[in-house]
């Protein structure tokens, strides 16, 4: 069996940032396992710009953003294996993986950073009725076909779901000569970033129909058309509102699901709200020495925040290794959510482990205007920030200062809630 201090599962933006940060924190025995033929993960197919505004203060394309981190990995000579699929991880941190060169191999890790990312919700999971012809793709699969392979999945397109990849693909398909007829969104608000609605739909006169869904797919062999209908408050289609669109392609951008099969397999506790692991302030899962960051933890909107989160996880993994890989006494304080936020990452905090400011990220469950984000340390409101608008499609964050913890030595509970102005 091969040994590494830290093994990173997945060489996408989270994995790369975790590796660099772990290395810079003084642990050099690191291995990245990546199932694709290149490092960089999904960024390789995200050829549009808008990445890196927070991290590098400039606007980069996905491949450019990824390359900055790939270069850092290469400079540090951090080891990685491509085309290598992790099949299983044991609770004792033995990783079983497979590739063409090594066959089946096992690695004993001192610490693990889970950075497997997420996958797209499929047509099947959405239970869309109709035929099952060719021409129904998730937006990400279509993005790969167009941007990496140079293939057109279709010429006349209807998009269901207004997630960011769907919005980006509406523009992308249009620029490649396809006609995007409509974007239908089940909910009364978009799941994507405001800037993507403007830049990808409005600028190209592509209609966005909120509170609409696909109720039928036609075509026995290849998609020939879809029917969309308006939905009521219970999200049920309203009879009589059906509209037919002739098209050869239906793209789906209906949500991303953290890919935690390996985490579940090793016994990591999963939060049903995020479908990602429960983590503490160190981004450590329920198994000591196993950390998680990026979209496998909770789905992000911006890669910059993925990198930031993963860097923290990498640093913490290094600290775990350097401390002799022993889990010390922990004094867990749980974060609870009320009136608005659906979850927080992290979900528990040990004040003794907090160095400097701690970022807490969360999402709200519906569009909320002119409210305050509040954080209570027991009964004491320590944060009270006005937000003109909050939406489920945009991740929120608050900074918990070290001072808050110092001021509350007998802290029992932290609450994040949204309050009226």
């Amino acid at each position, binding site marked *: 069996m091969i040994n590494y201090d830290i093994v990173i599962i997945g060489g996408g933006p989270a994995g790369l940032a975790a590796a660099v940060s772990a290395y810079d924190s003084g642990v050099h025995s690191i291995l990245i396992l990546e*199932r694709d033929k290149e490092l960089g993960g999904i960024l390789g197919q995200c050829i549009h710009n808008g990445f890196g505004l927070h991290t590098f203060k400039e606007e980069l394309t996905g491949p450019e953003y990824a390359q900055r981190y790939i270069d850092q990995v290469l400079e540090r000579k951090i080891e990685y294996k491509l*085309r290598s*699929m992790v*099949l299983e991880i044991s609770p004792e941190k033995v990783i079983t993986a*497979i*590739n*063409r*060169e*090594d*066959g*089946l191999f096992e690695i004993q890790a001192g610490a693990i950073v889970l950075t497997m990312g997420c*996958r*797209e919700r*499929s*047509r*099947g*999971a959405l*239970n869309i*009725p*109709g*035929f*099952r*012809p*060719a021409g129904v*793709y*998730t937006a*990400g*699969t279509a993005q*790969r*076909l*167009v941007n*990496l*392979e*140079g*293939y*057109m*999945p*279709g*010429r006349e397109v209807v998009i269901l779901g207004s997630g960011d990849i769907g919005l980006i693909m509406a523009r992308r398909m249009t620029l*490649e*000569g396809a006609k995007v007829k409509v974007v239908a969104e089940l909910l009364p608000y978009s799941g994507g970033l405001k800037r993507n609605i403007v830049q990808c739909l409005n600028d190209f006169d592509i209609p966005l129909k909120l509170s609409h869904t696909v*109720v*039928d*797919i*036609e075509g*026995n*062999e*290849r998609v020939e058309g879809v029917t969309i209908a308006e939905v009521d408050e219970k999200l049920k*289609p309203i009879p009589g509102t059906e509209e037919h669109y002739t098209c*050869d392609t239906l793209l789906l951008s209906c949500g991303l699901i953290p890919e935690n*099969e390996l985490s*579940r397999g090793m016994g990591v506790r999963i939060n049903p709200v995020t479908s990602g692991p429960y983590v503490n302030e160190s981004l450590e899962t329920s198994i000591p020495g196993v950390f998680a960051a990026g979209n496998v933890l909770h789905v992000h909107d911006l890669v910059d925040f993925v990198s930031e989160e993963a860097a923290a996880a990498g640093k913490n993994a290094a600290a775990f290794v350097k401390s002799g890989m022993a889990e010390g006494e922990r004094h867990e304080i749980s974060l609870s959510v009320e009136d608005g936020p659906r979850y927080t990452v992290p979900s528990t905090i040990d004040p003794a482990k907090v160095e400097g400011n701690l970022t807490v990220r969360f999402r709200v469950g519906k569009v909320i205007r002119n409210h305050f984000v509040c954080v209570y340390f027991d009964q004491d409101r320590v944060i009270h920030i006005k937000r003109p608008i909050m939406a489920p499609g945009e991740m929120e964050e608050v900074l918990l200062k070290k001072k808050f913890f110092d001021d509350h030595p007998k802290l029992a509970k932290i609450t994040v809630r949204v309050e009226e102005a």
Partner: protein
Amino acid sequence: MYDIVIIGAGVTGCSVARELSRYNAKICVVEKEEDVCCGTSKANSAIVHAGFDAAAGSLMAKLNLIGNLMMNDLAEELDIPYRQNGSLVVCLSEEDRPNLVKLYENGLKNGVEQLRIIEKEELQALEPNISPDAVAALYAPTGGIICPFTLTIALAENANTNGVEFKFDTKVTGLHSVKDYWVIETPNGSIETKCVVNAAGVYSDVFHNMVSAKKIHITPRRGDYCLLDKNTGNFAKQTIFPLPGKFGKGVLVSPTIHGNTIVGPTAIDVDNKGGTNTAAEGLNDLIEKAGSTVKDLPIRQVITSFAGLRAHEDHHEFIIGEVEDAPGFIDCAGIESPGLTSAPAIGKMVGDLLKDKLSLSPNPNFNGTRKGVLDPKTLSKEEYAKLLKEKPAYGNIICRCEGISEGELLDAIHRPLGAKNLDGIKRRTRAGTGRCQAGFCTPRQMEILSRELGVDQSELTKCGGKSKLIVGTTKDRI
């Protein structure tokens, strides 16, 4: 001139083909689709029925039982997965108990072994997620679960290896007799044969009615299904049926042989023989009904839904045999549930009939065994390591959800009657059948299929015909 032409490469046609390949005869299967198992055989409950519900004394009852008894040996010969997980018919109120007893007695008359009625306590021990309303159940340990794709594919492969020819993309457009033989019209030319086997599923009435004055009528009866994620695989241990009603056996909840949970079917009569489109009402109805026999069905774990068409004959009976006013034309019509279970018995019955009719002599080279697509998960660690060394393609995982490697894809593509499209790969290897429903592996499968078949990716299809996966390149309109 062929001795026998079989119309339809579903499980019935392929079973007949394999049975007939035991004899010296020139045999051909004609199929309108690009692959075997593209009609009713591909979309059903994937159940091997014990045989208690078909009407006592019917051909259906007889062939169901024989098929069930043959399945174990057949699965072994053909190297396909099969497991007798047992069936339960759940009685939800004391009022209905007489119907349960009636079903039990019917099963006894049909000759089903080990059949018994179990009471609440035993039922709950056997099936922890059973509805708390369940008062008793009919328990049939001989019921089983099977993969209908691999059963059909294995029968076809084995028939092909033993000399049966297959013509795909060959739709039969006409049929008439000339003296003592038959002429089958297809867009690719006419085919002459001494005998015809009509195994055309929902279209079997069309061909029967072309040759016989005594008309039959087949109604396509649609069944919608939901397939749940493998993480629900232990939800049901047995195949759980409600007490049957007027429209078939009701909505079942069952594990599949591959570890998913299947829920279905509905029963909706449709006009269109190609109407395999699911409908919202059907799926909603299904979800509502499926909840009756079990508690807390994890229906949110659905990964795909689909519909199949049963070839429902007006009298709900198999029509198998030589058509009286059309000598040499053999019907296998009205093959609906328990058609999958009965397939081996139907094959034997039609095989015997044609052996006698054409005085066929045994094929001395017949080999009834077939090796399936190698599944490395069935190997020992040492064997697996050896395989990976010899064939590194097994180390390249293509389908992440099901853990299917390039090696398995190559096996599926290059075997007899190999995969020609994505559905063909899916049904032979399970690549793309997992929770992401091929979102991840589609481009990877396309690359391999294109390379191995030597065709451009723009020619690749999901399931033959016009089901092209892409419509061109980003550059072809510049």
